[in-house]
């Protein structure tokens, strides 16, 4: 009997530039409660207890749990999803800026290298001579434009004809300037709003609320009293206050 070797499934989709690449738009700052079916799926996906559990258990036998789930659904979960949504938003913004910086640095290097590569001093000198001669002696200018024969295709692949090297130099120079401008624009944007800090804060608060969710279900401190709903509401309010602290 042969044993079939189990092949490792392709992980290509897990590469960061496919799975974790930021998007320019499409992520909202605010969370809106979706339709009930989608909401139940979200609860299941996020590891919460959805009302689907009552398909296997009788809610009449677990009135306390059913009541706690309603409390959590009313007071905690909306804030949880609000924070989670904001965390996703700021995470995306942070990575978007970082990607722009990294790619900007790479493209600046690339275009700078290409600018140096296509720059041909002989062609540049010929063009300068032609420009100077055009002012004084138009006949000589026509001769200088075709070059003096020193420039060959092997020496400068981008310079198929005299003057081409400087054209490419200008193009790459413009591209370098464009990349620099875009990077500077995003740098200015990133300095406002502190996306990394807000991402970390919202994610931390989100996970804190997730902990409170299970503590509340288990009636663990501080929810081991009869006023646990009030405690829960205070916890949520405290989290909202924390979220607003030091926000510029």
């Amino acid at each position, binding site marked *: 009997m042969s044993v079939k070797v189990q092949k490792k499934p392709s*992980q290509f989709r*897990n*590469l*960061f*530039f496919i*799975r*974790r690449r930021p998007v320019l738009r499409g992520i909202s700052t605010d969370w809106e409660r979706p339709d009930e079916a989608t909401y139940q799926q979200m609860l299941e996906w996020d*590891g*919460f*207890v959805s009302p689907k*559990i009552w398909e296997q*258990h009788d809610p009449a*036998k*677990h*009135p*306390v*749990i059913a*009541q706690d789930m309603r409390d959590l659904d009313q007071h905690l979960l909306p804030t949880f999803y609000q924070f989670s949504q904001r965390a996703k938003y700021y995470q995306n913004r942070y*990575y978007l800026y*970082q990607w722009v910086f*990294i*790619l900007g*640095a*790479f493209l600046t*290097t*690339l275009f700078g*290298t*290409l600018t140096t*590569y296509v720059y041909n001093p002989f062609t540049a000198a010929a063009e300068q001579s032609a420009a100077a001669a055009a002012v004084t002696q138009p006949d000589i200018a026509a001769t200088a434009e075709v070059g003096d024969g020193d420039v060959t295709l092997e*020496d*400068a*692949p981008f310079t198929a004809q005299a003057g081409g090297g400087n054209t490419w130099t200008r193009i790459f120079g413009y591209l370098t300037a464009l990349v620099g401008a875009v990077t500077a624009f995003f740098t200015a944007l990133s300095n406002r709003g502190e996306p*990394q*800090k807000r*991402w*970390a804060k919202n*994610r*931390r608060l989100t*996970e*804190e609320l*997730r*902990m409170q969710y*299970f*503590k509340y*279900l*288990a*009636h*663990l401190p501080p929810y081991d009293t*009869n*006023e*646990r*709903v009030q405690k829960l509401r205070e916890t949520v309010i405290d989290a909202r206050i924390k979220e607003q602290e030091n926000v510029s």
Partner: protein
Amino acid sequence: MSANQLPNHLDSQPHSPEDLALLFNIYLEKRLQGQLTFYESRIRENDLNSDFTFTLGTFIMTLSSLLATISASTAIPLLALISAVLPALSALLAAFRQIYGWDRQSAIYRDAVLGLEKIRLLAPDDDRLPFSDITPIFPRVVMTSEAVFTAEVNQWGQIFTASAEQEEAQNVPRDPLARMIAAANLSDDQAAAIQSIVTAGKKSGMDVQTTVNTYSEVSVEMQPPADAPAAGIELTAAAETTTILNSPTDAPPAAPDTDYAVVPPQESLPDGDMPAPLEYGAPPADLAAMPDTPPAEETETETDQELPQSGAVG
């Protein structure tokens, strides 16, 4: 039963054994197993990306070196261009490794997985679960699990505050001997003894005696807490500074042997009032002219002038 009576009635009602059994299963399935699945998935993804970028970056750098060598001998401009661009591509991958921090995240998630595996030991075996009383077990499982999650979240947050790592790097003493002593986890007495021996090699025997004596005096005066790990090191540093002040004023004072000799209390200098760091071995200008040994507090104040530029101030 009125609408107001129902919540009050349920609020005061404890969990029944059936409730606890259901909650226990919910917690194990939704929280513990859910988080474990999440961690393991992220570990796989992070490892994949870390391996991918590292391997590709290494390959690119190797290729760049190869092309540079070839272009040097064949004078093909295009090869020189490619060999110049490839390191930038490798740096691009390294930058992504830096911002995503896959290795650090994986390490954190692995710690959390191991912690959760240990917590699972608190729960009875599946076959024995129906016969076990989970009333005392359930709260312990929840509390310890949530502690693990809290630790994971806290560590995760520290990834973004790279300054912590930077500070740690900056606080490493520059002097190799000091680094060795710091890395050896010696007791305060052992570290002081080594410092005395080192000082003996640089100064006269009288200076050594002064150092030891001064150390005793300072230690009595300051009374560091017994559980303060770096207290002894700081005291040794203070003693050395005092030794310098005991030297004849016409001879240049020796530099402190350790960089942690200059670790100050953080409140010692106001913001924006940081003096420029002195040259290593150079005497402070106002100390060189000071004939007498100042009180211990003044000595500490003077040593503050060589604060490292890490997060100690501001």
